């Protein structure tokens, strides 16, 4: 049976991708941001996940204003790195897992999530930067990837509660897939940042760290944070943290943090990153 063995959350800052691609990770400005990922890179190399379900948002690359899916799942064989205006990142093609992706899509729809199924799309920095941060610069990505795209640009985005529930449904879908697969769920985007308006540059370290605190353990308080709180406290783009809740929901009732890292600034933003493992407790039926 397929099983979710871990969850990872990380910011997906485009500048981190640029620094990686241009070999700037050792520069004084970037080093502290990248140093926090060294533990995770080594851990991922040991874990060797077969599939990563990667929750991210498209940044006006594959989708424009013509079609705005709230939740979409990539079911293709492969996804090319998107040209975001300065040529595609020179990173490997992302290989999907169509059988598991279609299985998850069916299961989610029967679970009353109205998924948009995507069979052709390019993936932008939202998806490829996390792969670089966790896997480095290999010739090909060591895991298959199932993209789950969430609208966090056009209001309203889905509620945190809905994202958490989607994660729970993804866990049920994975658990019912017959093939033996080591699956991780990654939630990406955030943490505090505001890229627009006179309030641009807002960073709320205290709030971000409290959010990280509450990803651990058995509280589900995060699912009830309203959109307005993300906006007021973490800047207009901090809303991306709802995508972390898809990951958290997929890990079940209780988690343990294996690694945690927070750094300001990387470009305009806070870099946050956490690695969680699910804890099966006595009395859990799944």
């Amino acid at each position, binding site marked *: 049976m397929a099983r979710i063995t871990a969850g990872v959350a990380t910011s997906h800052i485009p500048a981190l991708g640029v620094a990686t691609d241009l070999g700037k990770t050792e520069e004084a400005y970037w080093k502290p941001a990248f140093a926090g990922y060294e533990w995770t890179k080594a851990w991922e190399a040991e874990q060797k996940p077969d599939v990563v379900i990667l929750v991210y948002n498209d940044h006006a690359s594959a989708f424009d204003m*013509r079609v705005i899916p709230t939740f979409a799942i990539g079911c293709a064989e492969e996804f090319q790195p998107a040209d975001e205006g300065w040529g595609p990142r020179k990173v490997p093609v992302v290989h999907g897992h169509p059988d598991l992706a279609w299985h998850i899509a069916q299961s989610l729809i029967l679970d009353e999530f109205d998924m948009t199924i995507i069979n052709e799309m390019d993936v932008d920095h939202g998806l490829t930067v996390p792969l670089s941060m966790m896997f480095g610069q290999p010739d090909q990505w060591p895991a298959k990837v199932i993209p789950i795209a969430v609208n966090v640009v056009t209001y309203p985005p889905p509620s945190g509660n809905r994202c958490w529930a989607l994660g729970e449904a993804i866990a049920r879908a994975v658990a019912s897939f017959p093939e033996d697969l080591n699956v991780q769920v990654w939630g990406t985007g955030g943490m505090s940042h505001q890229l627009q308006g006179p309030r641009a540059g807002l960073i709320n370290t205290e709030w971000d760290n409290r959010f990280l605190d509450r990803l651990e353990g058995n509280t589900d308080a995060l699912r009830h944070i309203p959109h307005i709180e993300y906006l007021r406290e973490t800047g207009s783009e901090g809303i991306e943290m709802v995508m972390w809740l898809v990951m958290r929901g997929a890990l079940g009732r209780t988690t343990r943090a294996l690694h945690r890292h927070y750094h300001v600034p990387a470009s305009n933003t806070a870099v946050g990153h956490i690695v969680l493992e699910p804890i099966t407790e006595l009395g859990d039926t799944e």
Partner: protein
Amino acid sequence: MTPPRDIHQYLAEFDDIPGTRVFTAARARQGYHLNQFAMSLMKAENRERWKANERAYLDGWKLTEEQKQAVLDRDYNRLLDLGGNIYFMAKVFSTDGQSFLQAVSTMSGMSLEDYQAMMLAGGRSPTGLRSLKDKY
């Protein structure tokens, strides 16, 4: 499920955040053509046509005169007020060869150097910038 909420109250709260334009449905509707114009700059041949004659290129899109002028002025706060979304507007400033940091600093009314220094010092504090009416 989250209990039903009053959509008007939900939207009204967005106007209470200082210096912030939330990309609501109303803005998405107002800025549809503006954002699609910006998206067109993802193609190299369009960027060349745009660079050759910005005004003529804009005239090929169903933008209001106000929107066209704000694009020509690179007035990003104005563009957000007119329905632009920052991820789409990024196509315009990327075509200009500007980074997010450079473009974002222009909206904050700070010089690039001051903005960078603020970020290096930990960013803009949320204190006093969470709510216009409650000032906290």
